């Protein structure tokens, strides 16, 4: 855990009486891309929300570079260099593409976060965002909205980027376009936690992966080495496998 930029230790999360996560041990190193796969309702989004301070968790359950930070308020997590592309994109309706992006730039400036991302670089990555700068976000296509959501997270200048199903509901061509941006994000030195239902995509875009089932880790290992069989077993049940 010495090199880990972020780690969890027996992470537990609940919604009222319902327990969604049962002691997750997880870690990600600087510059690493880790995929998180699992069926609907496995707890993937809950895990990201718990990391982001959107659910109450005990301090010691989440560490950033060794320091206990569990339960830190979401805006403080951003200040510490964690940004999220949330499930459902969560853009600011009624505001233009550019204003949505500016909100993140404003806060990065206010919080003194420096990094390589600028509007210019984002426009190079997703040229459509420049073309649609003045368009209200709610009238964009799903793929374009996802690009805004990714752009907004990048402009927080994160060290660690959390992505929650960024391919969901998009056409294959758009998915390729979005995934093609990830190597550039990593080239910036940013670590990525990638929640993804498409196992092929997840393996391809990550160094290591974790599979969740009903709030528990059922499989973990290097993405290139885990087999289809191991994954399908981890997805749907069976014993804990380490490859």
């Amino acid at each position, binding site marked *: 855990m010495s090199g880990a930029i972020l780690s969890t230790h027996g992470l537990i999360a609940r919604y009222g009486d319902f327990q969604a996560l049962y002691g997750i041990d997880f870690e990600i190193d600087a510059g690493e891309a880790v995929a998180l796969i699992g069926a609907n309702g496995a707890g993937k989004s809950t895990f990201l929300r718990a990391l*982001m301070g*959107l659910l109450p968790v005990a301090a010691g359950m989440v560490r950033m570079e060794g320091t206990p930070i569990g339960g830190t*308020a*979401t*805006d403080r997590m*951003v*200040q510490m260099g964690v*940004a*999220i592309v*949330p499930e459902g994109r*969560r*853009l*600011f*309706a*009624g*505001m233009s593409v550019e*204003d*949505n992006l*500016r*909100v*993140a730039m*404003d*806060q*990065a*400036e*206010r*919080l003194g*976060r420096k990094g390589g991302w600028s509007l210019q670089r984002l426009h190079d990555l997703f040229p459509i965002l420049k073309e649609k700068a003045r368009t209200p976000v709610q009238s964009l296509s799903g793929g374009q909205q996802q690009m805004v959501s990714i752009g*907004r*997270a990048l402009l*927080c200048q994160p060290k660690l980027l959390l992505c929650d199903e960024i391919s969901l509901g998009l056409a294959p061509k758009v998915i390729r376009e979005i995934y093609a941006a990830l190597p550039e994000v990593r080239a910036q030195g940013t670590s990525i936690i990638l929640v993804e239902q498409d196992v092929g995509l997840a393996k391809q875009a990550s160094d290591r992966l974790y599979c969740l089932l009903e709030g528990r880790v059922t499989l973990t290992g290097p993405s290139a080495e885990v087999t289809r069989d191991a994954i399908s077993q981890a997805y749907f049940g069976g014993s804990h496998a380490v490859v």
Partner: protein
Amino acid sequence: MQWFDALVQGVLLGGMYAQYALGMALMFGVMKIVNVSHGDLVILLSLVGISLASSFGLGPFTVMVALVPLALALGWILQKAILNKVVGEDPLPSLIATFGLSLALQNLMLQIWSANSRSLPGGGIESRSIEIGGIYIGLLPVIVLVFAIGLTWGLDLMLKRTRFGRALRAAAADVEAAAMTGIDARKVYASATAIAVGILGFAAVFQSLRSTVAPADGGAQLIYAFEAVIIGGMGSIWGAFAGSMVLGITQAIGFRIDPGFGVLAGHLVFLLVLATRPQGLFGKV
């Protein structure tokens, strides 16, 4: 000519209502708070202003310079100490809190200032008028209207162009997503309420120049602000301004028809809008 005169008087009256309505629209638009104590805050600031004027012999615009920062601070403290603890998806807790605050403020003002009516000496501007094309227009209502336009314009510009304005709109659209970009919602809320109450610092000076004020008068001011905001469309800044104009003009024309009908005409238009266009004349659905 008589109806044109009523129209002019209505627009001028609308200028006063706009100064109440702006802050109310801002608080509702950003936090879904219906601030029931809005009118009582105007009266409180008016009474403080009147006391400042008589204690230190200040003119109305000097009082304004003192009152606006005081109002800003009051709004900020109000949000930090009370409203931040009750703001949320459910508008009921904040409604109850501001209702309680309204009662507490009224009692506090009765204790300090007694039930008597007072007004702010204006050194003559309250009775001066200017003639434009055969119509005599009070100087004070014109100043009130100019301030109302300036405040509306300034607030709208701030929301659209500044870092704080963008953060405010983001928090209004989706407060959790706003936090995901690093926005500290409680801080943004405190500034929003500071501005909403700060505008009442202007309104308080004008209100106590144009008529007398007494501790129990807050309710009437609240109703006019509330009606203007509903007519204009909740949470929209220029909508609140336009709603104030509609309310002012309706009252002035109603008053021409029959002096007892003026205020009632305003209520009727309010009900008509609620019944036919509940999102307000300029509101988004």
